[in-house]
């Protein structure tokens, strides 16, 4: 008998489609009837069976709800609109028999029923497919604008925050939310286990506690996740997304540490443990927007001048220019590049004859990202001219005549992320230059030394 009841519950997803079909058919006929007199008897027949099948659907749904461990909060909207749909079916049926509110228009009942049906169906679909099923395929930018952005697929950690991370909220919970909670939550509680909250984890599932504090490796949580992927009891199930190696290490460490909740990560290898989760700087180096193709006559003339002119990739119109084969390149030659000024994102003038004068024309290159002036005679005297270059990110000034008195001008270039000053005049002038703390991350003077150590000479 129990089996039959369970089966009845499980056919709910099938049965619900019967009233949907009947109701839609009936509603279509109602609309059609306004033009051509359709048979009232047929309409009555349709809505009678709509009502009957809706009742069956509601009952099977209730059985299903009782047996599968859904929470009331999750099904309440679906239940409400399903009941409303059923009720409206019967009201419409009696209205068609002229036994109920005979003066009210039939189309009023029809319209309400249609809306109720849509909502009941939608909330039912959310239960089986997940809340974000419909919006998931929309473009990410669109979702973000509407404030629907879904949780990131990977946990991301800001390296500077590492000392204030707490175990559960910052690390373990995000992992479990991604990989476990879809089956172990109050709505759907496989194996009687819920993993959506810290307290629920400690409570365990139908086979008891899942964390063994005295012997972490004997924990059910540990063992089930460590079984071979092909094993029936392996978690997450082999068809679902698995924990990566680094995520496993993190979970293992957590269990070994006694599954703490609000404790800080007081481990000496915390950095190594978390490094794989550090935010990656995936943003593209070059501007993202599309650009018109550069004029081929302009390209040709630069090539004839023996410059290397290359798109940053085969499908890009952003250009990289290098004067590696044109050591005679001088300040006034920059004018030759002006026709392509918009296109140039990388400009390498290292080992050429350029001097401070070249800076005066550089502001005409609004999209420069990388500027290399290594081994040139620039001194930095007029570096405020680089201010308008909003995209400038990398500035190479090694082996130049850059003087320490102009450092302030570099500090003011706030959007530049990396500045290289190795072996410039500045680094030869004074042995130690104290950069402000904020600048140390951006400005690299280098002069690295490797001290002599005893093993340098040891012969074994």
């Amino acid at each position, binding site marked *: 008998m129990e089996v039959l009841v369970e089966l009845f519950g499980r056919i709910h997803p099938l049965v619900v489609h019967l009233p949907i079909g009947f109701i839609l058919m009936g509603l279509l006929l109602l609309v059609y009837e306004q033009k051509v007199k359709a048979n009232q008897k047929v309409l009555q027949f349709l809505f009678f069976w709509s009502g009957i099948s809706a009742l069956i659907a509601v009952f099977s749904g209730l059985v299903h709800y009782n047996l599968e461990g859904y929470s009331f909060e999750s099904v309440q909207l679906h239940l409400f609109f399903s009941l409303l749909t059923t009720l409206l079916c019967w009201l419409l049926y009696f209205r068609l028999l002229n036994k109920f509110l005979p003066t009210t228009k039939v189309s009023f009942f029809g319209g309400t029923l249609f809306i109720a049906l849509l909502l009941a169906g939608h909330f039912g679909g959310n239960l089986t497919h997940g809340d974000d099923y419909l919006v998931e395929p929309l473009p990410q930018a669109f979702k973000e604008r509407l404030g629907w952005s879904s949780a990131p697929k990977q946990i991301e950690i800001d390296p500077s925050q590492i000392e204030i991370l707490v175990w559960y909220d910052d690390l373990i919970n995000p992992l479990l939310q991604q990989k476990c909670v879809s089956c172990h939550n109050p709505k759907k509680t496989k194996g009687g286990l819920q993993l959506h909250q810290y307290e629920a984890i400690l409570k365990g599932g139908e086979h008891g506690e899942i964390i063994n504090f005295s012997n972490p490796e004997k924990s059910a949580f540990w063992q089930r996740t460590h079984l071979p992927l092909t094993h029936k009891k392996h978690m997450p199930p082999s068809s679902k997304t698995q924990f990566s*190696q*680094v995520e496993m290490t993190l979970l293992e460490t957590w269990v070994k540490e006694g599954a703490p909740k609000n404790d800080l990560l007081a481990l*000496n*290898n915390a*950095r*190594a443990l978390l*490094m*794989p989760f550090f935010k*990656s*700087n995936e943003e*593209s*180096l*070059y501007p993202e927007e599309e650009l018109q193709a550069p004029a*081929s006559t302009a*390209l040709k003339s630069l*090539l004839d001048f023996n410059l*290397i002119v*290359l*798109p*940053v*990739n*085969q*499908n*890009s119109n952003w250009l990289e220019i*290098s004067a*590696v*084969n044109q050591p005679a390149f001088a300040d006034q030659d920059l004018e030759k590049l002006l026709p392509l000024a918009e296109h140039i994102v990388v400009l390498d003038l290292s080992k050429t004859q350029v001097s401070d004068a070249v800076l005066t024309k550089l502001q005409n290159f609004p999209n420069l990202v990388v500027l*290399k002036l*290594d081994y040139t005679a620039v001194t930095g005297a007029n570096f405020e001219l680089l201010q308008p270059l909003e995209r400038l990110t*990398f500035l*190479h000034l*090694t082996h130049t005549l850059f003087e320490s008195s102009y450092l302030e001008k570099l500090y003011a270039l706030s959007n530049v992320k*990396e500045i*290289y000053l*190795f072996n410039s005049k500045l680094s030869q002038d004074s042995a130690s230059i104290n950069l402000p703390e904020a600048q140390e991350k951006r400005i*690299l*003077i*280098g*002069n*690295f*030394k*490797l001290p002599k*150590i005893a*093993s*340098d000479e*040891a*012969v*074994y």
Partner: protein
Amino acid sequence: MDPLLKLLEEYKTNRAQDNSRRHFLHNCTLGLGGIALGSMLQGCKTGENANPWYDAQRALNPLATLPPPFSPKVKSVIYLHMVGAPSQLEMFDYKPELQKLHNQPCPDSLLEGKKFAFIRGRPTMLGSQAEFVRAGQSGNWVSNYLPHFQKVVDEVAFLKAVKTDQFNHGPAQLLMHTGTPRFGRPSLGSWVTYGLGSENQNLPGFVVLSSGGTPDAGKSVWGSGFLPSVYQGVQCRSKGDPVLYLKDPNGVSRNLKKDIIDAINDINFKTFAQQKDPEILTRINQYEMAYRMQITVPEVMDISTEPEYIKELYGVEPGKESFANNCLLARKMVEEGVRFVQLYDWGWDSHGTDHSTAVDLGLRNKCREIDRPITALLLDLKQRGLLDETLIVWGGEFGRTPMQETREGKTMKYKGRDHHGEAFTMWMAGGGIKKGAVHGATDPIGYQSISGSVSVHDIQATILHLLGFDHESFTYDFQGRPFRLTDVHGGIINEILA
């Protein structure tokens, strides 16, 4: 007329008469249609550049620079190959369990179904001869054989479970550098030079520097295989003439050489005007390049002009052939716009047959020889702003066993390890690499991988990816089919990418 020639002439005439206009139209109409269709559909084009304008450049100069298919993370590669296969167990793969099993007989389970290059009978386990420390902020393990390297360990990403299916040096080196254990395929550097060209027109795009000896697989590991030979690696020597046969012969002045080349090129140009064969232009280009290289190569190859503190940083010995010199040269080359610099260092085959191949003696000396130079190379590239646009790859052709080698079943006087390809360590550093990452792990004795196993083709795919190529669509047509470096294998190792 000679009767035989007459017969031949008659045969040719008959053959020619067979090929009448009527015959041609009758037999070849479908073929003509096919040719026309092919040119309309462009369907069979493979491995060609999407930008015809850059193709035109290539037709004039086979080393002309080309844009990569995707925005690259790095512009150049420095590949450090330790010829002979360095022992991961004495350098990077810390195995305290193996220490405990030191000198115990190897259990059958490790030997069953396995074939070794030299181990016969039942060997004993050999604990690591080095001491390990957690280095840097990443806390990654490095042995005391590499004290300097410990300071830059946060710059590199380790692959702790690289797998190769070759256990002899030659084939394993070929696999590592050409994607197959057999001869005849282009090397990694050749592929890259073919795909991207060479920036500095006065220098080769692909330079090979070796110290200690030539790899077992010979020059094929930097050969161009079926690619045009202009893409093969150019071996530069840090002692004597940098490039063999580049210097003018005795009694020939540079002016005379120029006259000779001009005269040859003049004739070649005239032939080109008649024949329109682009191969002739290639040849003209090569003559000119060789002439330019005569000046630039000796300049770049001269490390004595470097400032004293740089020489100290690398620990170079000008005038000698050493790995340290080659590291400094590699930095100079990359700074000058050389695309691919391949370093080979000979002498890592630590079998324990003598003092120099003992893992506690000779290997330690080899580690000392590379420790400072590699550390210096990373630091020097960094301070010049080049580390972000250069990829540094370190590795051997395979790894070494956790068992002590028992050559022909005999106990040996020195401690050594046999060839082992199941799981060994390599590392990468530079642009696009996740600093301080570790991917892959081996079992407690360092014998097999337990996770994150990567193949040689995975490494090649990753290197190509960082240079802006999709290893699956980067092909060259040869013998009727497109070939790729990674054959039908390989996947990008995302775990070590930033």
